[in-house]
């Protein structure tokens, strides 16, 4: 099963490498990873999406906790939470499909953030399913490339599963 794990870590050099090393050294998989500063600039937050059975996930969270630079580990999957991801998609539609691309962007509440003679770059935010849906729909119209941020997650206030 897939799990979204949130980590509070010391904002020091080498921390990312320790965490990535833990995953690679023990044969765990990182499906996505995003890192950023928190309100306290000495602390960073990482959101890691990984998968495995209960025993593996338990080991992953325990191993992460054991790392000296890790302050807190939360398996978001255990909580009611909001997940978001952003994607930038560069599409090069044929002349006759341009309108359809713009329509799709609108349906997905996307924004056109760049356009050229032949391309549109669309920014879409949402959960994973939404991101995947728009990519699927745009594919036949000629996606040149896309870039995803990886997932970030935050717990809903006061609700526990």
């Amino acid at each position: 099963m897939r799990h979204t794990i949130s980590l509070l870590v010391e904002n020091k050099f080498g921390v990312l490498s320790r965490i990535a090393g833990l995953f690679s050294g023990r044969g765990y998989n990182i499906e996505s990873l995003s890192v950023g500063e928190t309100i306290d600039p000495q602390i960073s937050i990482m959101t890691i999406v990984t998968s495995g059975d209960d025993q593996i996930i338990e080991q992953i969270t325990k191993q992460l906790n054991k790392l000296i630079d890790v302050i807190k580990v939360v398996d978001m999957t255990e909580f009611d939470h909001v997940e978001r991801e952003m994607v930038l998609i560069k599409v090069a539609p044929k002349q006759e499909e341009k309108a359809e691309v713009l329509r799709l962007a609108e349906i997905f509440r996307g924004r056109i953030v760049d356009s050229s003679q032949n391309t549109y770059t669309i920014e879409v935010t949402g959960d994973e399913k939404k991101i995947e849906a728009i990519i699927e729909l745009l594919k036949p119209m000629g996606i040149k490339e896309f870039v995803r941020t990886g997932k970030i997650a935050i717990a809903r206030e006061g609700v526990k599963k």
Partner: protein
Amino acid sequence: MKITGAEIFLESLKREGVKYIFGYPGGVVLAIFDLLYDNKDIQLILTRHEQGAVHASDGYARSTGKAGVALVTSGPGATNTVTGIATAFMDSIPIVVFSGQVPTPLIGNDAFQEADIVGISRPCTKYNYLVKDVKELSRIVREAFYIAMSGRPGPVLIDLPRDVTASKTEFTWPEIDIRSYNPTYEGNRWMIVKAAHLIAKLKKAVIMAGGGVILSGGSKELRELAEHTEIPVTMTLMGLGSFPGTHNLSLGMLGMHGTYYANRAVQESDLLIAIGVRFDDRVTGKIDAFAPNAKIIHIDIDPTSIKKNVRVDIPIVGDVKRVLTVLNKILEEDVKEQWGEVRKAWSRQVDEWRKERPLTYTFSNEVIKPQFVVEKIYELTKGDAIITTEVGQNQMWTAQFYKFDKPRTLLTSGGLGTMGYGFPAAIGAQLAHPNKLVIDIAGDGSIQMNIQELATAVVNKLPVKVAILNNHYLGMVRQWQELFFNERYSYSHLHSDVVPDFAKVAEAYGAVGLRAIKPSEVEPVLKEAFKIKKTVFMDFIVDWKEKVYPMVPAGAPIDHMLFEEAEKKAEKKLKAVK
């Protein structure tokens, strides 16, 4: 007053109570070595290889319980420490390794003797540091010792760029404050109560004690638990000495080369009390078939050890000594049981297994059996020695035939299985215990992996004894090739009956070299060696055909054991057919 980084380094070590550093100089650490030249408080022991320095600091740590310290230069000096660090890491041994580094402006430029040792050692240290600012140095040293020694101990590396050791600042000694590191020492009381109830309820119980008991200093508490509840105790390799090997409740070692009775008892038990162990595959054999009927209580300070390899019914995260103290108290006060009555049938069963297949070997008058040498060493030292081993057959025979009664008397590379560990480790232990007999039980293969440390032992007048069980083979490799690879001895023959002449090597270094070829010579050679107050190599030419038995083939359940008699029978049959 402002002092240099090198001076801060020394002052910090002094405050940590360090007396010995094992090390090797080189370009970027010369400023530190210059200070050590006339330092009265700290003595540097110059090894002949950086790996030797780290193993020696490890031997010092294992035999004393204090952190060992090593100091090396950058680049190759640093990379040579990796095997020693990984050895300490796998066995949770507290050492602090200082490596020199090129000046900070040159880091990343592929400077002369530059290696990213922080990156290289990351997966095999508990923590590591690159000191970027001299102002951080004393705090980092203090933290490093704290991290190495606390919780589940382990090696810490500090990388010291040359410019940091040269720049100056005021000396401070800040209190330790690491918000993200809080080891759990006290076990959950509710879990301990549940454990006590299981111990009272289930009859066929076995205690499995590991290195964690020794690290936490919990041997006394372990003995109380075992004696009070009359539960037999088996030990992992790392646990030998945590419980007296001569005690009537001791089952000796379990696992791949464990005793028949220990393995049977674990497999048939209905309760396994695992204390300070991590369920290595050499202990469990086939994991799904390990202790199939047992409820498992697992006490360990490292939460990641629990449920990593085996299912656990009652996990207790905490320091072994503290948890056992609470457990013993509950058992004594709250749970009233007639222990003798509860365990009667089980004890009888365990005793039957003991009688059925004791640890044996076939003595010979013509050729020296390696087990005989180990037995004689035990007999002559009466168990009152510090024994180190190398890795392979020598290590397993030592574990089987030397009865360790006290903790910190067996120093061996259990987890990583590092050949070349025993001799430098013995040097470290001898330095810490100048009046003790320190013996490295070695193989002819392993001893050649750090034989250069003869110079360290001789120059420092350390009377370390090395007993080489010389079968001119990489014995354990040969054993596996015989049993599992159709006797194709691919590259395991070392010809060490011819080269080198170990006695002469020893003499060339200024040590004493002795040799025994016949069984009758074993005792005289040992006696002579123990009398000499010098470094001694004893070359025992042993039966090369001898194998370590019992043996559980890799991946089999631990009660599927091979025995010596089976081999003898097969040989007889073969002769009859011919």
